[in-house]
């Protein structure tokens, strides 16, 4: 990424799920929504087996905090769906 240099702050979540199917679904559910300010922040979602890895890189801790909060809120919905319907 050409803007990599400006993104001085990083954060990484590793979220374990029951199985790799759930991790894949979570990854695909979160992935489509675009970042509102792509010049300030980048978020990537990958799943390795049953673990979902979310990486935030951004220009300040503030933008990362906001994005991370939002991702956690969304994850809660995903996990609640698994809990009730899987």
């Amino acid at each position, binding site marked *: 990424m050409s803007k990599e240099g400006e993104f001085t702050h990083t954060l990484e979540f590793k979220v374990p799920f029951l199985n790799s199917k759930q991790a894949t679904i979570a990854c695909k*559910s979160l992935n*489509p929504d675009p970042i509102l300010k792509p010049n300030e922040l980048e978020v990537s979602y990958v799943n390795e087996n049953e673990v979902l890895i979310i990486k935030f890189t951004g220009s300040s801790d503030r933008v990362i905090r906001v994005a991370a909060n939002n991702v956690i*809120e969304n994850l809660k*919905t*995903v996990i609640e*769906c698994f809990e*009730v*319907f899987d």
Partner: protein
Amino acid sequence: MVNLDQYLKPNQTEYYALGLEGSANKLGIGIIKHNIGQLTTLNKAEVLSNVRDTYITPAGEGFLPRDTARHHRNWVVRLIKEALNEAFGCGLHDSFKKLDCICFTQGPGMGAPLQSVVIAARTLSQLWGIPMIGVNHCIGHIEMGREITNAMNPVVLYVSGGNTQIIAYSRQRYRIFGETLDIAIGNCLDRFARVLKISNYPSPGYNIEQLAKKGKNFIELPYTVKGMDLSMSGILEFIESLANDLFNGKKNKLLIAKNGTNGTNEDEEKITIEDLCFSLQECLYAMLVEITERAMAHVNANQVLIVGGVGCNERLQEMMKIMVLDRNGSIFATDERFCIDNGIMIAHAGLLSYRMGDFTELSESVCTQKFRTDEVLVKWRDD
């Protein structure tokens, strides 16, 4: 007639769809059933469940996107569970197997609430292995209104907290003939209710309507029809300042109604909150009736269908009825179950799309705040 069963699976005799709606402060979940074949008066769509939870803010406050999204997140899974139980009544692990698709509101609406609901739709779509269908909120209202009332080809007045449009169908599009140039009518009413600090339960518009019934003096407000369009922010500004003068006891000659003919002080009567509500309703609805009448003349229609949250206002229905009957037409409206935002309309409109072979890929399932009614190709009609 369009064949709605081109994509019928072997041995399938009916379709089931789950609809998720959360574009504003209502979270609605519904499950609808269509039997195969054309939808007619003898083969109606069947509402299996239609549950809703409204985020109600304290009097004097509006709902903010962040808080509304949090409300939807808190309730969405519980409400889906409730809707499935109500529709199928059996164990959760079997009930979803009947569903053909999951429909969700893709827009227009508030970004954060829309996004909080689509997350659940995406997860369940993958979990259950059924496609998702993104639905235009306005199309949901129109199709559900048509299905409930049996109106074949009406001029549609869509009035809600976020939208004010006059719509007519032509060649596979619902075309917008006129709309608000600034704020929506429901927004105008809601914001006036906030100035008056009246309760947001069950809805601000309903409470204004109840107050308006007690009003008897009409105050002339700006009347702002602009061709086929409307403007309402000026009216709101005007009536807000009147209300503030009334609360602060400021002298304003508009706040005195003269009853008698001799013009003495004894005949004077103070304008009340009720009078303001009454005047606001009369003025706004008269404007709606005017543009609706013009749209009817334009497209030579004699049916009017009122949809959207403001559509359950009885005074609006009454005024519209007077105009429509004068033109020898007929008026169609639904009650609050279908007028106010609900999941079932999303399920219904989504299922129509599904039956025409449409579905929304995960990567295309991003919600959008702006999504115009006439962007949607109405594949399921060809009249």
